[in-house]
């Protein structure tokens, strides 16, 4: 049997832990999908249904580009909302296009996530070792957490770095070092060293900087290409960015009950997918007096569309500006920048007026 070369669609910077999980846990090669570019989106859109939500198109583009890069085993996650049905259509489209690959669709298995991975992979790799998976799994989880902690720190500071690019440089080194790690102890050391390096980067923060919270749909918020690198743009404007939504918060530390309670004046029931954290964070940023909130999603994302009437009420009640971005495959760069700049001007003026 040919050596399995597996791949999973991109999501932010998480390819390092995924690579560790696949190589050390499943004992297969892992192909990191080529970085997302215009071409990724173009081929993804060409073969996708027109009005499907954008993450579907990005994933398909990733799949095709990793096949070109040598992958022969593609993995699609299960999940809530439309994500739970992505895999079956992705597999069908790739098959219709004539690609001969293994497709592991986790939606076929009804168990919790890590067990699903195991069940899905057993079909194509019967000699997998459960012990190895059990050994690497906690390391992988911790890696997700550390990436999120590091990126939280970056979002708070990168806008004020004395030398442009300092944070990016250390961040890239950090991610590339993570790929070699197999033991918890190594991971701890690496994380500690890098946190130290991040903290040593010289930053000049003004006394009362602008603060903006980002909320919205899972993929678009986490995949920078799909949101036009909005966090970078905000940083360049000298804004501190807060974002709760990431893999470790949703997977490991999701205070669903508390959040539901916190937002009960606005909504009685969960509205699907990321709606609870979207509303909960918006309300929290509003209460804490942030200068603004930015809501991002892909065009047609039903659960996030449905949070908008709630966000509008929060915006009115707390007098906090909210900027809404809905990205589709044709969103123009100019339109995006113009709206972001107008929003920036407005929150600056409001802050001046409050003084």
């Amino acid at each position: 049997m040919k050596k399995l070369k597996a791949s999973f669609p991109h999501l932010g910077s998480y390819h390092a832990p995924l690579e560790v999980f696949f190589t050390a846990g499943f004992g297969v090669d892992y192909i990191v999908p080529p970085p997302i570019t215009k071409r990724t989106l173009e081929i993804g859109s060409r073969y996708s249904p027109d009005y499907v939500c954008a993450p579907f198109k990005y994933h398909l583009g990733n799949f095709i580009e990793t096949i070109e890069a040598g992958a022969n085993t593609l993995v699609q996650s299960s999940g809530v909302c439309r994500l739970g049905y992505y895999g079956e259509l992705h597999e069908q489209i790739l098959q219709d296009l004539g690609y001969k690959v293994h497709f592991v669709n986790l939606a076929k298995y009804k168990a919790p996530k890590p067990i699903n991975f195991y069940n899905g992979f057993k079909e194509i790799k019967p000699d997998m070792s459960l012990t190895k998976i059990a050994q690497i799994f906690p390391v992988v989880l911790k890696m997700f957490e550390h990436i999120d902690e590091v990126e939280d720190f970056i979002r708070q500071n990168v806008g004020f770095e004395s030398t442009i690019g300092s944070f990016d440089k250390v961040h890239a080194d950090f991610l590339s070092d993570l790929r070699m790690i197999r033991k918890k102890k190594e991971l701890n050391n690496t994380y500690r060293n890098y946190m130290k390096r991040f903290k040593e980067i010289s930053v000049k923060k003004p006394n009362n900087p602008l603060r903006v919270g980002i909320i919205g749909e899972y993929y678009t918020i986490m995949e920078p290409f799909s949101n036009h690198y909005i966090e970078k743009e905000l940083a360049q404007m000298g804004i501190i960015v807060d974002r709760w939504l990431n893999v470790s918060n949703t997977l490991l530390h999701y205070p669903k009950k508390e959040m539901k309670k916190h937002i009960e004046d606005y909504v009685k029931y969960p509205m699907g997918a990321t709606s609870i954290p979207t509303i909960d964070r918006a309300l929290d940023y509003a209460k804490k007096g942030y200068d603004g909130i930015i809501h991002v999603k892909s065009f047609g994302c039903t659960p996030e569309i449905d949070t908008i009437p709630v966000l509008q009420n929060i915006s009115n009640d707390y007098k906090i500006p909210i900027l809404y971005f809905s990205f589709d495959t044709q969103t123009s760069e100019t339109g995006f920048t113009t709206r972001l700049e107008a929003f920036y001007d407005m929150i600056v003026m409001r802050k001046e007026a409050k003084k």
Partner: protein
Amino acid sequence: MNVVIRKAGLYTMKIGIPRALLYYKYKHLWEFFFDELDIEYIVSPETNNEIVRKGTTYAIDESCLSSKIYLGHVEWLINKCDYILVPRISDYGSGGTVCTKFQAIYDVVSNTFRDRNIKLLYYNIDPKAADFEMIAFLKMGKFLGKSKSRSLYAYLIAKQMQKCAQLKEIDEQKQRLSENKTKILLIAHRYNICDKYIGEPIITFLRELGTVPILGDIASKREALAKSIEISETLPWTFNKELVGSIPLYKDKVDGIILMSAFPCGPDSLVNDIVIRRVKDIPILSLMLDEHEGSAGIQTRLESFVDIIRLKKGDFNEKT
């Protein structure tokens, strides 16, 4: 004295039911339930231009046409009743999930019309929280001041009536299936295909073209759910499963299939593509409707679709 006041209170209590989304699925269940309990209710009128216009104004622009229309109906009911019935459904347990719209619509309505002092009737189905349909109805009955036994009785009667109505429909459709005319299977959510504004013009036009429209949503739900696996293994949404499952049930008895969706429907965006890729030996037309769609364009597309079907049939007949 006391009794009189309570009675007077009861008589003025009026429920408003938006004629949109799940109304088309649960009409009999709801109406007979209220009838049995002597609760007055009012159903908003058939969708008209004004309702569509209002709904479009209140809805977030990117929402699906069906939910825009829903908000138009809710708006129509405001100030015409005491409570509006806006059902909330989490999922159908082992039967599948729902489009998140049905999880969200209750709170969408309450937030959209917050300043209009709108009151919503309790109705939540959530199998994980043991809020099954019957429980939901008992709670609704309690809220309306009815005893548990009376509510239970009303629910059971209403449930029977709903079943009868479904059987009758299936029977009627059976007769249409035996007609010796071109038959077209419409795969569309019932709230779309039966809506005066979205679907009815299409049905009427198909009839004018001399064809017989067959509704995928009229079928034994149990059979359809089971059959849907033949087309798609991991399909999560109950309503889409039922529709997709009607294809194997009816395919051999019809001459063409129309997939009709409301722009930009989430579940349908994926499901329609699966159907087109997997159901091969029958002509399929895919129609996407939004509030800007002119009827002229649709009619042309329907006409040429029916022409293609007839041409195919003609060829076929010549050979036999």
